[in-house]
């Protein structure tokens, strides 16, 4: 056989693509019922977009109209004269403090529960009980949690968490007690999101760690939690959104004092033992429904609240959508 025979045949040129079908408007052949269904689906989608845009634009219009730097930077003052009743610096600070506190309590507990449910879950009756517990907390209206919290935190054992009046009557209302209950409304979101992330890690990854002589704790700490950080981040951010938006717990457990009223003593501890308000209660109190009767300030504060929540939602999207390489199952 000559050397020529060793020449590889050229790869066959790709067959010419079949002619593209003329753009086909399939709707023409659809039944009337299908057409109506599609139209309704379209309408529902568009309506939702319009509604969202209307909320944002209306609040933007109203908010920008009344918002000023001085509102953001001055303390609220008890005055019927709206030119002298100050801004909402304290509610903004209250929102931030309460969100940080609630998240700081909820995140480690929530991640811990999720890890236990996903990696241990023994005995199984306890795991089922914990799962039900998380679901019940998730389904409980926050006002019920708030009332329950007040009941608990007014016990004298918890006197170190809030003001104590003369005669040892525990006030039960403070950033601590409100933060603890806020942690409960964020908890189910963190547990759910973290569990989902842990669940998506293939079991052979765990086994690979065990096969290197690592125990369960090291595997969780060094492999599983780092691999779940996106899920944890999503859950925590969603939880923050819930805390920022909640009103009932603030009204009942934060004392709803316009200004932040720290307890005298140690700076940070005293602040957290003190009372205050958040943007949600500020909006409520100044809205036509509340007692303040300063709707302009309510609109401005509501706008700030909306901006915070939209920002948090955006952050969730950013965390959840980021593509990271992962394993094959």
């Amino acid at each position, binding site marked *: *056989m*000559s*050397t*020529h*025979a*060793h*020449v*590889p*045949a*050229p*790869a066959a*040129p790709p067959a010419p693509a079949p002619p593209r079908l003329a753009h086909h408007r399939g709707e023409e052949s659809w039944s009337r019922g299908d057409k109506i269904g599609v139209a309704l689906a379209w309408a529902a989608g568009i309506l939702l977009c319009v509604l969202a845009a209307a909320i944002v634009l209306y609040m933007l219009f109203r908010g920008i109209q009344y918002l000023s730097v001085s509102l953001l930077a001055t303390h609220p003052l008890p005055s019927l004269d709206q030119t002298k009743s100050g801004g909402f610096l304290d509610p903004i600070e209250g929102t931030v403090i309460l969100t940080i506190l609630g998240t700081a309590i909820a995140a480690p507990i929530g991640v811990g529960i999720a890890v236990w449910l996903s990696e241990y879950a023994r005995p199984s009756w306890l795991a089922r009980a914990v799962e039900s517990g998380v679901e019940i907390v998730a389904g409980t209206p926050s006002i019920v949690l708030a009332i329950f919290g007040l009941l608990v935190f007014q016990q004298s054992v918890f006197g170190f968490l809030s003001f104590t009046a003369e005669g040892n009557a525990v006030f039960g209302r403070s950033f601590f007690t409100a933060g603890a209950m806020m942690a409960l409304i964020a908890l189910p979101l963190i547990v759910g999101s973290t569990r989902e992330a842990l669940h998506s890690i*293939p079991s*052979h*990854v765990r*086994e*690979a*760690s*065990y*096969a*290197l*002589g*690592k*125990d369960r*704790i*090291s595997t969780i700490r*060094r*492999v599983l939690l*780092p*691999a779940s950080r996106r899920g944890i981040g999503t859950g925590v951010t969603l939880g923050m959104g819930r805390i920022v938006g909640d009103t009932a717990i603030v009204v009942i457990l934060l004392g709803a004092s316009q200004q932040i009223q720290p307890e005298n003593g140690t700076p940070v501890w005293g602040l957290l033992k003190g009372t205050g308000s958040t943007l949600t209660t500020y909006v409520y109190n100044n809205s036509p429904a509340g007692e303040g009767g300063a709707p302009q300030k309510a609109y401005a504060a509501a706008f700030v609240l909306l901006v915070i929540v939209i920002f948090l939602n955006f952050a969730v999207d950013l965390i959840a959508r980021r593509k*990271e*390489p*992962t*394993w*094959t*199952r």
Partner: protein
Amino acid sequence: MDPLSPAEEEGFDPIREPIAVAAQLPPPVRRIAVEEPPTVAQPPADGNGHVVPAPVAALPKRMPRADTAPLERMRTEALSIAYGQKLAVNQVSLTVRRGEVLALIGPSGCGKTTLLRSLNRLVDLTPAASRGGRILLDGEDVDLFDVTHLRRRVGMLFQQPNPFPMSIFDNVAYGLRQRGSKKPSKRELEPVVVHSLQRAGLFEEVKDNLDHPALALSGGQQQRLCIARSLAVQPEVLLLDEPCSALDPISTQVIEETIVSLRSEIAIVIVTHNLQQAQRVADHVAFMYLGDLIEYGEAERVFGSPVAERTREYVSGGFG
């Protein structure tokens, strides 16, 4: 050996058309034939328009044997494993030696992966699993070992590459960083990490990117990283559970070469569905069927003149 199939030769006149054809040729393509070793198809013409024969990169049918004398490391004695009521491995006794590769072959569900996973007691993680018989490492029952200690001596590689979500360096150093003890510094770890990556044949590709995330590597690189990660803790036995089934042929070849180069120091057990792979790398072969060890012996004998009827059918492609 002629790398061309008759079909490809049809319709091509090597005398008349070479130059015109060469101009339109696609880049070199590795073509895979089932019964033939992989060959690389080259553009046929050199710069002067002369036709040059395509080189044939033939892979030896059998990779060369290790030159050290085989030494027994592990042994199973009448090993049985059941999941609940279902017996997955039935009374299997075999020997794992340093200096050779033992391949476990057999149809799906025959118990070969269960047998493999029992050697480092990974089966213990399955709640329903129970075990009878004995597994010995250097004459000692593995049940007497601390399980983390056992798994450091008996490493494992999985079907899917599974680097941890950390840097390449940290992946290899993962097994070296013991919990509780004083943490070794990066400077102390570096020689071991580099040496392990070199042995796994990956170092040249990643030496400038040791701090890059390991999950960004390609599948074949990931699997070699997993080999390096296992080697870093200096195992005496290495268990491979279909390590190439998720990889492309080139990565497979690199990994097979790595396996063969390691066997003089480490006893290797490989589970594979790929009979050609078993022929290429194995020194001993154990054929299992429905939990029973049907045939165990030297690779040439099991593939060349199997004793049992089942083995003959399986190695000749009769079932599987």
